[in-house]
């Protein structure tokens, strides 16, 4: 704990070239850049597939690969195939980040209650209207959840990419363990800042996302239902209102 505290509170470590400050900046730029690009590509694709029902193979393939492939192996392999550096790592980050977003966009729209869509169609809405006014707002919680999952995954994968020649806070973890350096404070600082970044980004997207969800979706139907349907039987509760003399 002390090693960590001494390292992170030392201003020289923040200002140094390839120090904490520079690594933090790299990490933020890489993760947020990859997240933005992945969202811009994967969200429309997933929603389009979910809306039209055509080409489900694409989100399913992405979903399965994104879940099963170990990030460390993927980064190591592509670093061997291409020249090392952050270019290929950045491309892989985007690809791996696309998986949860595309699955969420696809499943969020596809698994909406069919009767809702059917009644929208029956009331004369054209497909584009159904997409914009029914499907997107109703799938919004799922879409936000997908982006959040991607954000957390990208922040932690950026750290993994550092092993195979990438930049960012992961370098503190990898370099700090080199026999020549062997500085636990450096390693722990990298770990803590990555965790703060992941949790912070998750909270920000969650907070921003809540404002995009139509308030009607949060109203629980159960409260309204309970007023309509009287409870059938509560045999276990000697209730006040039960028939007198029961």
């Amino acid at each position, binding site marked *: 704990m002390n090693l960590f505290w001494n390292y992170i509170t030392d201003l020289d470590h923040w200002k140094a070239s390839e120090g904490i400050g520079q690594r933090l900046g790299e990490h933020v730029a890489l993760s947020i850049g990859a997240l933005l690009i992945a969202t811009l590509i994967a969200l429309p694709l997933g929603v389009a597939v979910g809306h039209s029902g055509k080409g489900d193979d694409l989100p399913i393939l992405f979903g399965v690969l994104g879940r099963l492939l170990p990030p*460390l192996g993927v980064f190591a392999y592509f670093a061997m195939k291409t020249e090392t550096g952050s270019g290929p790592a950045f491309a892989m980050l985007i690809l791996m980040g696309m998986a949860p977003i595309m699955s969420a966009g696809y499943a969020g729209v596809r698994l909406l209650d069919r009767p809702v869509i059917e009644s929208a169609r029956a009331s004369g809405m054209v497909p584009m209207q159904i997409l914009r006014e029914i499907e997107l707002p109703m799938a919004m919680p799922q879409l936000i959840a997908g982006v959040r999952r991607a954000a957390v995954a990208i922040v932690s994968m950026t750290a*993994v990419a550092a092993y195979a020649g990438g930049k960012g806070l992961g370098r503190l973890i990898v370099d700090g363990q080199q026999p020549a350096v062997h500085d636990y404070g450096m390693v722990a600082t990298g*770990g*803590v800042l990555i965790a703060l970044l992941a949790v912070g980004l998750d909270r920000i997207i969650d907070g921003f996302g809540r404002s995009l969800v139509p308030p009607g979706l949060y109203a629980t139907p159960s409260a309204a239902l309970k007023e309509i349907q009287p409870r059938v*039987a509560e045999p276990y509760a000697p209730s006040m209102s039960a028939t007198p003399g029961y």
Partner: protein
Amino acid sequence: MSWAWDNRGFLGRMCGEHLYLALVPLLIGFLLAVPLGLFLARARWGRPAVLGFCVVLEAIPVLSWFVFLPAIIDTTVPEKINVLVGLTLLVFAMMTQSISAAVAAVPDELRATAEGLGFTTLRRAFQVDLPVAMPVVIGGLRTAAVSCISLATLAALIGVGGLGKVITEGYSTGSEPEVLSAIAAVVVLAVAAENLLVRAQRYFLPWSTLAPVR
């Protein structure tokens, strides 16, 4: 592929170590999450706070745990216990949410019936709530199992064994087939674990509507 065959002993040993690193946390995290999830599902207080805590816990990358746990539990970095505890925390956070959501969705009528039949709260929790919620819980467990097996490769970044070590070794010696074999082994283990859970559900909960095996 010839690399994998020539080194099948080594690869097999690493698979075993990998499964140890991934499945022990899965089991412990699950067992810890069962009582808390059951409690939270019907708790009058504390539910939003604890679930919010679990959401944050789930967002913390396991690599951060691997390198920061030594400062908390007083170990050195390249030790298996860091990996085991880090993954356990992740599984615990995931499964607490999924168990409490699944149990909260158990119909009130069933619980009322059990209570009318004279079940104590504890007996109802384990003989009614949990079995009825089990299909959803197993769904969560499948996700957790795949995550664990995939994330256990990161143990190599702190110098602990398993298939991640095969990847880093292949990377540092420039042996492409070694990296590819390790990736393939991770995928095979993950698919096998998921398949096993689906089969377990079919065997132990034959009444549950089966999700198609994907």
